[in-house]
């Protein structure tokens, strides 16, 4: 499981945790997160996230 980070606000998307509040189940790999998903903290588009080294 990987972690991705918002380039603007630093929010991290953890594949293990998902984003259940926005309909992304725990364990959802980044590649499967829909393209119209946006950072829940600041609204940055999925395409503008970066992968965090883990």
């Amino acid at each position: 499981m990987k972690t991705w980070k918002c380039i603007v606000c630093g929010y991290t998307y953890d594949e293990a945790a998902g984003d259940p509040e926005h309909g992304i189940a725990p364990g959802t790999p980044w590649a499967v997160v829909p393209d119209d998903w946006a950072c829940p903290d600041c609204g940055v588009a999925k395409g503008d996230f970066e992968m965090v080294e883990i």
Partner: protein
Amino acid sequence: MIAPIVIVGSGLAGVTLARELRKLDTAVPVVLIAADTADFYSKPMLSNGLASGKTPAQLVSAPREALAAQLGIEIRAGVTVDAIVPTARRIETSAGPVSYAQLVLALGAQPIRLPIDGDGAGEVLSVNTLADYARWRDRLLGARHVALLGAGLIGCEFANDLSAAGIGVDVYDIAPQPLGRLLPPGAAAAFRTALEGAGIAFHFGVGIARVERMGQGYRITDSSGSVRKADLVLSAVGLRPKTALAQGAGLRVGRGIGVDRLLATSAADIYALGDCAEVEGHLLPFVMPIMQQARALAKTLAGTPTAVHYPAMPVVVKTPACPTVVCPPPPGSVGEWREEACIDGVRAIFADRTGKTLGFALVGAIAAKERQTWARQVPPLLAA
């Protein structure tokens, strides 16, 4: 030669616009003009980067050259714009005239400074840019105690960041509570208690009247006459949109540069977005509105006129001592706050007489998790 789209300002608004535009049009020439270095950095982290040990360089996610290459745009850094000549579709800059097909003003805002007496008043810091942050981090070296003017959103984030980094902080605000009108009284009290629990000292109903140099630090006198010491003084009392350039060119200016929902100013082919723009009366210096604006304006510039729409846009207050989300009711809303205590905070809902939710404030980690549930019930600020 085709005149380019010229964007003035390399903050989140200007760069996000360029990024969104390139998703739609890879060919149109884009020139971005910036007074600063034009390195792209995380703005929200300026007020919470200390405790996490972020150096100014670590907040930069794309240095200028990388950004220009990544977006396929030309960036002219260290260049100031002195005037706009709308009739000639030209701007006058410190590096000479530049013609534009369309001009976008993404100028940002400057920190409001309240009048303060004393020989140390000129050394009071404000932090609204990466360069400010570098200066702030520099001056903080060795500081044990900070006096902070302003208990609004940014002031409280700085206060929490300082206390989490082990630095003492006195926060002054003329208001009776933290976060001003974003919170009803019960929610504000819970928020205050949580931040006080993290070691932050609040002084409400008073401002900073005098700052005098004393040894390596300062002697602070508040407006009630109480005196305290601090190694550094930070002011965070809000932002004022940069409107002088637009005003000088005869554009319509209110509190910000006046734009319609296409983000068009009163002059042909001149647009504005971000913290400098007043969109149909709304001045919202937050990230989410900028994202909405950049996406709409990119479509417009790519040939499909697109009105910006604002869904309900909750704002996260980055205070780890008390995670909080606010979604204030639109100005002029008629209704009432209803507050309920949660295990670690307060859930406050603003509803009209028919029970329709118009805004909310969720204070504490447990309540803050309900953000999406409540955001779904709030009508859009500017409907699609």
